[in-house]
């Protein structure tokens, strides 16, 4: 089971919507990932495997987590699925 963090800047709206969509994809695809939700402060002390955030934030935090996924369109489940699969492929 891989551990992920869904985060946005404020940790209020965008990341919660993103988490809802990520959870849908994980459950539909039966992926072995569990995600929690937070803001960028949650990155401090985060010891999981992957951070999922908005594309513009992803650049800034690229060196702060083992693997960072930036999502351009948070309603696009195909984009989320593709990027999660890319992450899982690095683990094989």
């Amino acid at each position, binding site marked *: 089971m891989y551990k992920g963090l869904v985060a946005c*800047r404020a940790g*209020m709206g965008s990341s*919660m*919507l993103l988490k809802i969509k990520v959870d849908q994809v994980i459950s539909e695809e039966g992926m072995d990932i569990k995600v929690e939700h937070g803001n960028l402060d949650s990155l401090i002390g985060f010891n999981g495997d992957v951070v999922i955030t908005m594309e513009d934030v992803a650049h800034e935090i690229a060196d702060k987590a083992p693997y960072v996924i930036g999502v351009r*369109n948070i309603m696009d489940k195909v984009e989320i699925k593709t990027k999660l699969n890319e992450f899982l492929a690095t683990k094989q």
Partner: protein
Amino acid sequence: MLKNMISEELIVLNVEASDWKDAVRKAACPLVNQGKIKESYVDGIIRAVHEIGPYFVLTKHVALAHSRPEDGVIEGAIGIATLKTPIEFGNEDNDPVKYIFTLSAIDNNAHLSALSDLAGLLEQQEFYEFLDKAKSAEEVMNYINAM
């Protein structure tokens, strides 16, 4: 429930705005008038965009305008605004914005279910088509109540 956070008074259609700031202010205005947020919350949204960019343009043509609760949330609410003319927010993936949802949230947990419903709404192409044709806030509210 989504319908508990949205009311007719928080829905404005075919708003004319000169730029993204004007659009955010006009979309949030009903929430200020209805005592859901303080003016400082709207300032917080605009300040955050200046500092860190248009972080809330989430999907094609859709902005979820929001800031931190401490900027001035009084009560949890969601406002809906459609723009007469779509406006560039500076998000190259999802510009121009035509629909602005203004979110005020007291805390994360209280709003998860409303956001979950909102996520369901935001992925429905029919909802945007409906918004484009809707003539009144009452019609939009009826649509949401019927979900």
